[in-house]
């Protein structure tokens, strides 16, 4: 039986979560010109908090999920205010290194907290699987994740297009100086961007830790690494590009994973490197990505 349709469905579900992470990156990049290497740690933190609160604090899964989203959002805002804003305008490199340092601290603390134990999330979906017929199956949690991702994506784009803050955010990214003169508070825009990215990370982190994954685990940050090729494909500053890139990477990864037994000559675990191969080849031909702004020099 052909497994390709099922792989594509799994890929779409995984790609949707990847897109949420990628969207967070793009929002941060547009608002503060920063590539946030600590996003992976925020994913892990989101999942860990859900697990810790749902199992140990006894406030139930949904309560824990809510608290985790709020907490990671506030962490995002705090990072922007304390670490990113003082360095604003010092360039991509300095800001990138700052987030790498933050990632080092956060991930070390989380690794210590998690160590070798498994942290199940206590989510209501368990390991149930939905059968769509025709051999297409999808874990229930991934199906819910897909729906949530679509809803969040739609909500974000509507907000981004019509709401005062969304418009302000776009204006600030387009031309910060003019936006400031028009009375748009750039500082609050940056904070909002980092908070939003934190919230997206918490949601994605939670869903990525449910079945088929065993629970909150530091290796989850590798998903944030897989989102780098996604935003590079999309062109870094394009929100639509982030979604497209996330989908492309998600689907290709799952297809290669499914056919890995036929690709044994490429070695074990080849699906882990596929995003980067796609990326490097793609960038050599189209360095600005699918939908990114072309860089124009003015001398």
């Amino acid at each position, binding site marked *: 039986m052909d497994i390709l349709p099922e792989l594509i469905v799994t890929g779409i579900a995984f790609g949707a979560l990847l897109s949420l992470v990628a969207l967070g990156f793009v929002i941060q990049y547009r608002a503060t010109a920063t*590539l946030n290497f600590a996003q992976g740690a925020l994913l892990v933190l989101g999942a860990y908090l859900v697990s810790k609160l749902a199992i140990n604090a006894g406030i139930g899964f949904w309560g824990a999920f809510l608290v985790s989203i709020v907490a990671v959002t506030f962490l995002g805002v705090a990072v922007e205010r304390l670490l990113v804003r003082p360095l604003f305008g010092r360039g*991509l490199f*300095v800001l*990138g290194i700052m987030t790498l*340092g933050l990632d080092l601290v956060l991930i070390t603390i989380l690794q210590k907290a998690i160590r070798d134990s498994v942290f199940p999330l206590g989510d209501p979906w368990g390991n149930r699987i939905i059968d769509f017929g025709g051999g297409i199956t999808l874990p229930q949690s991934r199906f819910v994740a897909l729906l949530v991702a679509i809803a969040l994506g739609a909500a974000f784009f509507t907000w981004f297009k019509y709401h005062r803050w969304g418009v302000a955010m776009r204006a600030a990214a387009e031309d910060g100086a003019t936006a400031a003169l028009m009375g748009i508070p750039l500082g609050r825009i940056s904070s909002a961007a980092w908070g939003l990215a934190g919230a997206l990370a918490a949601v994605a982190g939670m869903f990525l830790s449910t079945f088929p994954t065993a629970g909150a685990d530091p290796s989850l940050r590798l998903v944030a690494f897989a989102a780098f090729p996604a935003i*590079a494909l999309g062109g870094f500053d394009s929100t639509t590009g982030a979604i497209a890139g996330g989908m492309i990477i998600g689907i290709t990864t799952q297809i290669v994973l499914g056919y890995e037994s036929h690709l044994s000559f490429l070695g074990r675990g*080849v699906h*882990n490197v596929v995003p980067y191969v796609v990326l490097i080849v793609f*960038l050599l031909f189209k360095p600005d990505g699918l939908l990114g702004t072309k860089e124009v020099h003015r001398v």
Partner: protein
Amino acid sequence: MSRLRPESVPASRMWAAGGRDLVWRSAAVRPAAYLALLVLACLMPVLLTPFWLQTALFALIAAIGALSLNILMGSAGILAISPSFFFAVGAYAYAILGSPSEDKFGIALYGVGLPTPIALVLAVAITGIVGWLLSPLARRLRELPLAVASIGLIFLALHVMDNATKLTGGSLGRAVRRFSLFRYDFSSITSLYFLALFFLVLTWWYIANLLRSRPGRALEALRDSEIAASALGIDVEHYKQRVFVVSGAIGGLCGVLTALAFRHTIPDYFGFFLSVNFLAMIVIGGLGSPVGAVAGALFVTFLPQFIVEWGTWLPLLSTQGIGSGFTAQEASQIVFGVAIALFLLFQPRGIVGLSRAVAESAAGIVTARRAAAAAGSANATTEA
């Protein structure tokens, strides 16, 4: 400093440009200071216990790697954040070229079995060539895509190292043959220490000359503005290519020495984490400054060992690696992260900038006291 970049001269140095700075830069003091440092470095095998000598060995090797990364990122401003890729290429090239074919753990490993000095030179050359092959990436991509692509290189390299079992020994890695020259085996830690010191001095001499000559100025110019640089007649593509070759070859040297120090190469060592450590070195030391790269390498290498040795004094630390506290490794990672943040926020020029600021304020106090004393005596004479 090139005239293209007036803002890179710190204000403190502009007002202090007269006396103290000139003294430090004068022809007599600088070589004397370097010589004193070199003599001190040569005395280390006598002064240090084997444990600390081994740490010093790794620090010297790290310093070579930090210099390689620093010339690429600090001097040329190319955001290729994957030094561990070049280290891995160098280490494995040496392991494959230097060791003979053998059977290990039931796996037939292929090796060329060249004399080790030739294997070392070839490994460095191969890494340089790999750098040359990668330079189109830097010429084609802007800084952000390049940073992401270079992270990709690390994952690709890890994949190849894990799977090209006949060459690399897979995830178990392969043994590395000892370096020997004129029938002398570099097997003791002391001999490896001097080998690493020799290569560090060589690298230092090469890079210092490079940065102070035309190519170095050209690299700084293209870091500040590629367009301005090319308008001044600097062949941007050509220099980007060359800096990749140089940085790659030096990174390869660091990889070979790492392999020699461990006597074994394993893929996991060369992951993203190693790259982050080297980024920490050049940021903590002071970006763009060779002195800073070496200082940062020493700091980042010695700190975990200090915590291992005297960590029991620190709160929150567990020595066994179990229980509620942090292990020494974890504690030092947190310290690196915090150090990166603090330096970026408060002293962007790193250890180099910090020591200069301290020296200047100390000198400032001395001058102020002298001035006060002079004024006092002047008052005394007028009163008399």
